[in-house]
């Protein structure tokens, strides 16, 4: 399974994602410069964290017009796996591949800390390897991860299983105190209707080795591999 990590000007988690995939997951991975016009030959496109285009105007607002995004949108429309992490999630909502929007954290702080995530839908390509009831300890690092969607959109997303990760306590309880940024419903990650595009604010690529304090992020990458192998 071949991964592609898109590099925008201002991406800063591209190397982390590359390392997690090549050295820990041990699958082929290549960088894709944002000026590229094709993503042919890849099985999964990762949009990494960072501050693409300096977060000017809004996070992800300018990156979505990068040449590569046109082919990423086409790739997603044809069923390709697209995985947006942090700033990558912001790019995916701006380009319209995912519903809702991400804006300034309540409390206005940049939050850099571990969070605990409950997996609300284990029947997606990104979560099929997660054991039932498992709470994932994965760090966040963002100032604009406050997820918003209008009530009607949220209802539809919930019915369709598109709310995938929610901030919770270590015991898996979704509480107000466990919400680091004010996101509605404690939402940490969502997918599209077809489940092949997922965005999440926490950084699974930063929690794939013991030395990082958690290896819980690895199961998301392993899910993608298992899903892909199941298609063969």
């Amino acid at each position, binding site marked *: 399974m071949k991964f592609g990590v898109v590099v925008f000007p201002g991406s800063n988690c591209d190397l982390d994602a590359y390392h997690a995939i090549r050295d820990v997951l041990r699958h082929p991975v290549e960088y894709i410069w944002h000026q590229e016009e094709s993503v042919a030959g890849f099985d999964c496109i990762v949009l990494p964290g960072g501050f693409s285009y300096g977060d000017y*105007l*809004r996070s992800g*607002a*300018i990156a979505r*017009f990068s040449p590569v995004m046109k082919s990423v949108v086409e790739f997603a429309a044809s069923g390709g796996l697209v995985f947006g992490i942090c700033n990558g999630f912001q790019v995916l*909502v*701006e380009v319209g591949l995912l519903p*809702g*929007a991400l*804006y*300034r*954290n*309540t*409390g*206005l702080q940049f939050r850099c800390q571990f969070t605990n995530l409950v997996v609300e839908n284990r029947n997606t390509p990104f979560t099929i390897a997660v054991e039932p009831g498992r709470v994932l300890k994965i760090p966040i690092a963002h100032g604009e991860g*406050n997820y*918003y*969607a*209008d009530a009607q959109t949220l209802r539809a997303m919930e019915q369709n299983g598109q709310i995938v990760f929610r901030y919770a306590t270590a015991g898996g309880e979704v509480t107000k105190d466990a919400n680091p940024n*004010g996101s509605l419903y404690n939402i940490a990650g969502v997918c599209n209707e077809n489940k092949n595009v997922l965005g999440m604010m926490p950084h699974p690529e930063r929690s794939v080795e013991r030395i990082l304090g958690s290896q819980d992020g690895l199961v998301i990458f392993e899910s993608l591999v298992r899903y892909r192998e199941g298609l063969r």
Partner: protein
Amino acid sequence: MWKARIEIMLKKSVLDPQGQAVEGALHSLGYDNVRSVRVGKYLEVDIDGGDKEAAGAQVREMCERLLANTVIEDYTFTVTEVQR
């Protein structure tokens, strides 16, 4: 030449953390009568040529495509003629 003055504000239904923080700061300065502060963005865009209607249509399109995120933001604008 036309000058568009564009205001972008979070929708009323969207909580404004910045506005709340500014409101709290104003209260702490003693301005107890201050209510519901909202923080937005202001942009000025100069547009060459065409008539006022075309400039307005272009501004609207630019707001929809890039300048505002209409999931969370509303925008308003004016267009006035200015000397180059």
